[in-house]
């Protein structure tokens, strides 16, 4: 056996277990799901497996599905804006923390949600936002409101809880971009007479754009697919594509339609990621 063949054999032997697992539990199920999305369910709930675009046609024509899609887009816009607004200052603060201990603690606060099940974090928001929850208690005691405000079940509660779930994915890439930024550049700008605001807008922000873009892409891609958090804080009927997939499949038991909606969601996610990859490429080229 030649050395080249032995090397090739080694590589594929090392990769074989991972590839076997992924093919069996990821690739084949995805292809099966796509095939299922081309079947259709008649009103008597019988699934017909002749190839048909019925479900996709329904998606493009039905106002109900447009509402779901628009809900998802609206949510991701809110999530992106919210995570940027909260995440950028938080990342900056963390990177510029004075002591090493302070920085470690701040990193721990940002990373810890990633290690805590999404169900626990979301449940925390249920405790905060319930009619007899913490926020309503604080509002009532302070006299801001007379009786509890209904917060669970609203679009706003989905936005707040989802921002909480996704914020680390925005903070960490921005922090890593700010970390790599040479402080000499900011000082040079200031020595040349730039005000702190000018330094930020013309030096710091442009140089941290790769982090901002990476974070934004993650927040949008993950935000489109969120379903446990909206389900718990607002119920399955909240108009969101991911919840629609859940509802159509598990409540209406229309598997082919759920499969088709899944692929619509997947395509939107991939478009976002591809656009982000392009934008990142453009930013990196212009930085050189």
């Amino acid at each position: 056996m030649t050395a080249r063949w032995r090397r090739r054999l080694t590589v594929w032997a090392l990769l074989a277990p991972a590839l076997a697992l992924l093919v069996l539990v990821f690739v084949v199920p995805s292809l099966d799901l796509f095939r299922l999305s081309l079947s259709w369910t008649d009103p008597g709930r019988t699934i017909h497996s002749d190839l048909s675009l019925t479900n996709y046609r329904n998606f493009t024509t039905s106002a109900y599905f447009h509402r779901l899609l628009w809900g998802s887009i609206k949510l991701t816009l809110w999530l992106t804006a919210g995570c940027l607004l909260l995440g950028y200052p938080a990342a900056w603060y963390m990177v510029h923390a004075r002591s090493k201990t302070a920085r470690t603690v701040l990193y721990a606060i940002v990373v810890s949600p990633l290690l805590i099940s999404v169900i626990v974090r979301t449940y925390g928001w249920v405790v905060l936002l319930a009619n007899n929850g913490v926020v309503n208690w604080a509002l009532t005691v302070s006299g801001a409101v007379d009786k509890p405000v209904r917060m669970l079940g609203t679009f706003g509660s989905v936005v707040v809880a989802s921002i909480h779930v996704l914020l680390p994915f925005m903070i960490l890439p921005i922090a890593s971009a700010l970390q790599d930024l040479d402080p000499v550049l900011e000082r040079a700008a200031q020595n040349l007479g730039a005000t702190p605001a000018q330094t930020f807008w013309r030096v710091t922000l442009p140089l941290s754009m790769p982090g901002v873009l990476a974070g934004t892409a993650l927040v949008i891609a993950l935000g489109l697919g969120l379903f446990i958090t909206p389900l718990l804080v607002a119920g399955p009927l909240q108009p969101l594509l991911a919840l629609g997939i859940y509802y159509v499949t598990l409540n209406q038991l229309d598997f082919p339609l759920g499969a088709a909606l899944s692929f619509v969601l997947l395509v939107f996610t991939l478009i976002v990621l591809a656009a982000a990859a392009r934008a990142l490429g453009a930013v990196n080229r212009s930085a050189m």
Partner: protein
Amino acid sequence: MRAGGAALNGFSLLVYVFLLAPLVVVVLASLNAANYLTFPPRGLSLRWYRALWESDLWTESFRLSLLITAVVTPLALVVGTLAAYALVRFEFRGKTAVRTLIMAPLVMPQIVLGIALLNSFSALGLINTLTGLILGHAVVTLPYTVRLVTISVQNLDPALERAAQSLGANPWQVFWRVTLPLLRPGVVAGAIFAAIISFGELGVTLLIAGASTTTLPLRIFNYTEYNFDPAINAVSTIFVLLAVLLIAVLDRLIGLVRIS
């Protein structure tokens, strides 16, 4: 500008309060003596921890989740370490495709992966089985083990392995006595992430588990959604404390800044 700077710092601190708020609230609520959700708490008590301990349903879920984690972690770790080593150390055709495929489950919306597995596992009779959950969790955790071990392989100087070889070690000896010990930080971090993600996994679990495979996160979900049980606060607190402990381990191991 100084006032603006102070305002910005204050705002940033509020963001950290926001990040902590739901976790702190759950920990406080777990010590509430009342048997429904009230604020402020009516007296401190550990009764919900005792209730948890004494409930067959909760302990059964706890055991199930531990069992799944105990199988999934070594599985994802071994499979992931081998793949990470191949991806860093060798050049071969299709490398980008393989790397993309391994990371794909991270990008796939969880509801879509869940529905896909629900569909395929139904046909195979794997719904509501331990095997089904283990396979599902393995796919979800694999990207994490590959990514974390990759960092360590990249930092591993190939000269050390060559040195061992030229001193007469066979490939097995090189792997067990040189390569693996040097990969330890990444491997341990990978194990921690795999374990914590499998233990808390719900996106896929919700769709492929069933009445006889109610994992801990699934039971919390069911009780939050359908019939409230104050013991949820106590279980959730265990999750929070576990995360605090593991964060400290990860920081000592490779530093939090580098993981992220």
